[in-house]
């Protein structure tokens, strides 16, 4: 049977919903050997198992790690990470008087508290004076038990298959009139239950602005607003949705959500923060996938295992697999701890699968069994095992001529470096640092690498052995594990996959996107809902476990998840379902006092949520409104001019090479370089994620540095100049027309009489560019209703 066949031989578990039991995990304090353990041993054990040769019993010394952890005729006094296999511990707790230690006739007595200390020390990895004890090879080669999960473990709501619940029906004509789709029926049912009513439909100007920002991340022009508000055909709204879904800018907006989730960046992070000059191809792949409405199951599979499926020229698939190496990467000079680095890489690969696809915090089970969810530590490493043979691979994409030319340039620099390296080998330690610095300086002059696909490969030769790591520490390997998907979703005793499974990551992906997987469709449906409404039906989008929030509308979530799979995992279909609902088209004004009192958080969706433009939307909109936005799509990322002080704050300031073509500086924010150690201040201040960990939802904070950025920042002031020019060009010197156009561009609507009066009074004395600065600082600009 091939691997996939075996995999699909796994039964999916339909699970009964049992009452949830809160899992309280008491934190165990870290036991320190010198402080806590050695005194107990010294007092009670060393007289017979210490330094005194004459008194020693059984040849065992507990004052020396070498002896205490050694195999003595098949038993070992201490086994790191395993109190239940540690003979010394077992003999402390045994009820058999003949075996019990210390001997009953001795004057020693180890208290129950002291026994607990020793047990905890063993369980925590038995560090001996800060070092890990040598683990006998036999223990490391042993396979970890497959483990079992109780019905209670399996009863988590998100592990149950989506329920088929009848779509609610309504008797009253008013309700029937409001409900446009099953989405609305589920929402209205909950509202009625709480004695609430939906808000009225938003006006057309609000709706068109909402749709534009939501789907393409840009504001509608006045002409686009007019086209919609004057369209009297009944399907005007639905056609606008279609037009925006077909726009190439759609992928640039929705791709950003995905890039947040997979913590996309184009540099390594850590001290060198080395650039990944080809990582932009992954960004372009994501944008194109959204624009093409690539089925989500395919999208997931390509990212996890694209290289396994690709021929040598399937660039898209090779690029997609770059997903596996998007995480931060630590490189250091000096005595490298290779095992440690590899472990960090594997951890990055593993954790993002749980966070992004499954909505399960499997990363919590790296150091110990998950404290809240039924994920055993061994099962965490079984997922990691799918990545054991995954290695970085840069697939070359250049012509032989280009290569010749490039090699010549490299040779020039290498001619400089070679004698330095030779000198380095002979150098005294005192001379070393200067030579190393010279070499680094020369390396900075190497030509940019030739184009390549930033991908991975399945390299059996370099496969890392995967062990359960005691307390997650690479120095302390425990038993070995093989590949198996998340154990709690499999029947007890489900076997691991054979070690020679040919396409391990694709195999895992197939399990993830199997329609019977209860998590995948729910998690993605919830994300799409969240990006539209600002809050998920499950408010913790990366955590569908015990510690996460329960769904506010479980039936709706299951209906959406079902529809997602039935409609071919089409993300655009999900948009259609959600955007054409009455729920989405509600006003965001939250005018109903009853609603404000009963449901101030709007969990039940009695109104639409107002949305603060996020960092990319805000910057793109500044450029768009000022008429300076460059809509060029794709290609290498742009480095914009920034304050010299910020560049100097880089460990390697030469890394910031401002893109020469200035027209590139006005491109959409998704095309600006994502550099881990230098997030752009404008983006950072408006809550852009830090690119270090998966970000499922942007915060929208309000603080004074944002005001300073929009008032005094270079971007806002240069774009204000441009907007002022645009207003003059399009309206001449008619101040009333300038104010009217400014309002239409910036807020989508004309000014009210009061606003017009205030603006006109201001413009009697103050320059138009200051008015433009003011417009960029309006709530009506920064928020979408």
């Amino acid at each position, binding site marked *: 049977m091939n691997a996939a066949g075996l995999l699909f031989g796994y039964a999916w578990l339909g699970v009964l919903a049992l009452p949830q039991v809160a899992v309280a995990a008491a934190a165990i304090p870290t036991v320190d050997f010198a402080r806590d353990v050695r005194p107990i041993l010294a007092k009670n054990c060393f007289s017979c198992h210490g330094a005194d040769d004459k008194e020693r019993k059984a040849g065992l010394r507990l004052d020396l790690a070498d002896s205490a952890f050694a195999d003595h005729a098949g038993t070992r006094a201490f086994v790191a990470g395993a109190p239940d296999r540690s003979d010394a511990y077992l003999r402390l707790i045994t009820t058999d008087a003949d075996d019990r230690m210390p001997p009953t006739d001795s004057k020693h007595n180890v208290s129950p508290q002291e026994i607990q200390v020793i047990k905890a020390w063993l369980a925590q990895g038995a560090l001996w004076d800060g070092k890990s004890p040598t683990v006998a090879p036999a223990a490391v080669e042993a396979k970890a038990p497959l483990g079992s999960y109780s019905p209670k473990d399996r009863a988590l709501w998100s592990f149950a298959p989506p329920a088929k619940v009848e779509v609610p029906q309504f008797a009253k004509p008013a309700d029937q009139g409001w409900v446009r789709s099953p989405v609305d029926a589920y929402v209205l049912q909950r509202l009625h239950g709480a004695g609430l009513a939906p808000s009225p439909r938003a006006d057309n100007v609000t709706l068109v602005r909402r749709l534009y920002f939501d789907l393409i991340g840009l504001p509608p022009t006045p002409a686009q607003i007019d086209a919609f508000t004057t369209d009297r055909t009944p399907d005007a709204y639905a056609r606008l949705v279609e037009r925006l879904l077909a726009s190439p800018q759609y992928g640039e907006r929705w791709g950003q959500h995905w890039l947040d989730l997979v913590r996309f960046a184009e540099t390594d992070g850590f001290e060198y923060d080395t650039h990944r000059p080809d990582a932009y191809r992954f960004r372009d792949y994501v944008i194109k996938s959204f624009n093409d409405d690539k089925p989500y199951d395919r999208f997931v599979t390509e990212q996890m295992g694209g290289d396994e499926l690709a021929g040598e020229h399937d660039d898209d698939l090779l690029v997609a697999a770059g997903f596996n190496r998007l995480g931060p990467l630590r490189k250091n000079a000096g005595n490298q701890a290779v095992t440690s680095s590899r472990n960090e890489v594997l951890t990055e690969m593993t954790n993002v699968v749980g966070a992004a696809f499954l909505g399960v915090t499997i990363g919590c089970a790296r150091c110990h069994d998950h404290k809240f969810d039924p994920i055993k530590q061994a099962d965490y490493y079984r997922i990691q095992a799918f990545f054991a043979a995954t290695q970085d691979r840069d697939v070359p994409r250049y012509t032989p001529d280009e290569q010749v030319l490039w090699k010549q340039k490299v040779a020039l620099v290498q001619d400089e470096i070679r004698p330095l390296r030779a000198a380095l080998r002979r150098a005294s330690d*005192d001379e070393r640092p200067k030579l190393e610095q010279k070499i680094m300086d020369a390396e900075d002059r190497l030509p940019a690498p030739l184009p390549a696909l930033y991908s991975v490969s399945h390299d059996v030769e370099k496969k890392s052995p995967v062990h359960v790591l005691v307390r997650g520490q690479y120095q302390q390997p425990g038993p070995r594990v093989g590949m198996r998907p998340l154990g709690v979703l499999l029947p007890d005793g489900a076997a691991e996959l054979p070690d020679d499974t040919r396409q391990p990551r694709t195999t895992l992906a197939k399990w993830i996107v199997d329609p019977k997987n209860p998590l995948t469709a729910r998690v993605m449906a919830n994300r799409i809902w969240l990006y539209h409404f600002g809050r998920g039906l499950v408010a913790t989008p990366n955590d569908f476990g015990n510690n996460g929030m329960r769904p506010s509308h479980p039936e709706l979530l299951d209906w959406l998840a079902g529809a997602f799979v039935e409609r071919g995992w089409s993300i655009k279909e999900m948009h259609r379902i959600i955007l054409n609902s009455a729920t989405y088209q509600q006003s965001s004004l939250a005018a109903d006092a009853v609603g404000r009192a009963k449901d101030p958080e709007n969990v039940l969706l009695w109104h639409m949520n107002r949305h603060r433009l996020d960092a990319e939307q805000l910057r793109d909109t500044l450029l768009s409104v000022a008429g300076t936005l460059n809509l060029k799509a794709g290609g290498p990322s742009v480095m914009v001019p920034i304050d010299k002080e910020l560049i100097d704050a880089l460990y390697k300031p030469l890394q910031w090479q401002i893109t020469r073509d200035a027209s590139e500086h006005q491109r959409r924010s998704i095309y600006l370089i994502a550099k881990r150690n230098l997030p752009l201040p404008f983006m950072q201040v408006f809550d852009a994620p830090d690119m*270090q960990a998966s970000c499922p939802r942007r915060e929208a904070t309000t603080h*004074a540095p944002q005001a300073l950025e929009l*008032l005094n920042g270079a971007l806002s002031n240069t774009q204000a100049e441009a907007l002022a020019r645009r207003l003059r060009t399009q309206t001449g010197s008619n101040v009333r027309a300038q104010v009217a156009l400014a309002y239409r561009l910036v807020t989508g609507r004309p000014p009210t009489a009061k606003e017009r009066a205030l603006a006109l009074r201001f413009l009697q004395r103050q320059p138009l560019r200051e008015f433009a600065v003011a417009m960029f600082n309006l*709530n009506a600009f920064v928020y979408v209703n």
Partner: protein
Amino acid sequence: MTLDSRPTRNRREFLTDAFCGFGSLAFASLLAQQQARASVTNPLAAKTPPKAARAKSVIFLFMAGGPSHMETFDPKPLLNKLHGQKRPASFGEAKYQFVQPNAKLLGTKRTFARYGQSGIEVSDLFPLTAACVDDLAVLRSCHGDMVVHSAAQYQLFTGRVVPGFPSMGSWAVYGLGTESDALPAYVVLPDPKGALEAGLPMYGNGFLPAVYQPTMFRPGARPVLNLELPPGVSAAGRRKTIDLVRSLNQAQMAPEDGELAARIGAYDLAFKMQTEAPRLFDLSNEPKETLALYGIGQQPTDDYGRRCLLARRLVEKGVRFACVVSGGGPGTLQWDAHDDIEENHLRMSGHTDRPVAALLQDLKRRGLLDTTLVVWGGEFGRSPESQGSKGRDHHNLGFTMWMAGGGIKGGRVVGATDEIGLRAVDKPYHFRDVHTTILNQLGLDQDLLTYLHQGRKERLTEVQGKVIQEII
């Protein structure tokens, strides 16, 4: 008292007064200010800590690159005796970044003397700081997990060896808000000589909301980004623009809209920062005696002295956390003395001894030391073995930090490394214990100060740290 419990005034009027009235705030009663701070719409509102606080502010004197404990606060006579020999096996193993297994021990050329009532030994690198030793609690048994800069710096600041976690400054502001109306709550004053290995993510807010991010004071005339008006714009003109923003925003605002009211408030705070912060940077109104105390206007102390004095002025205004960095750029300009421990540490201590001592004295005479916790240290110490003939490598198994003020008992030494300074053997304290103690002095509890991230209630200390009981 909540806002809603004032029936005579509606919420909009109240918020307008408390947040928006730039002029009116100055005349507002203290009570009104406190109520404004307590408003749910302002995440930086000052909060009462769950425990009794001994310190209101923290100044972290970050000695970047890793100062040697054996040259500063941890005398090791045996090390000098064993100079040039291999480390005796009885001291155990150590993993270094560069030093090879056959390296020889390196004695120190520094001399130590006993200072103050406490008689604590301090080396001749710090004669002025030594005079304050009765205020210092010297922790000779610190240790961390990483022996390379970036990872060790992340652990020192965030408790984790990888980037992406909030720094202690961000945690402090998350827990306590700020007492300052017109200044950022958490300020980093980096060394103008350049960046550090761990880069900006080390100081950052990680997964905490952006409102808890640090403000980096940059070198030069414009320390805070975007505080200066753009060229050609006058303050009076800009004030009119901000007034227009407020009028237009209020024209459209529903009375009960706290979120938008908070945004209007942020503009007034921004304007206030714009006017007050430049005053803070202007040291010309300090007495000459104070400038001289910090070594300002003379080399090599001018730069670090200025930044230490700024730190005092910041905490005086209620700033919660200030980090004053010594060292930046290539390793030789940090405390990263791979090549020559003598040359490096003489130079680096020359920059910092006077300013650090001045900061302690100045805080003390102003009565601020009681409520300001001062912490000194680097991301690790240095190796007892020599790198080359006269340098020392990184070393994380045992090194020294010190604390002063903020309820810390001075004039005492806690813990010890072994006789050659290799390993913390008596009362070892990990970074997480240092973090726990800092939080404790601020009235915060490591177990209560949590933030749910990726399904885990994250905290500064990752796993449980201990309060260093000997010094509180």
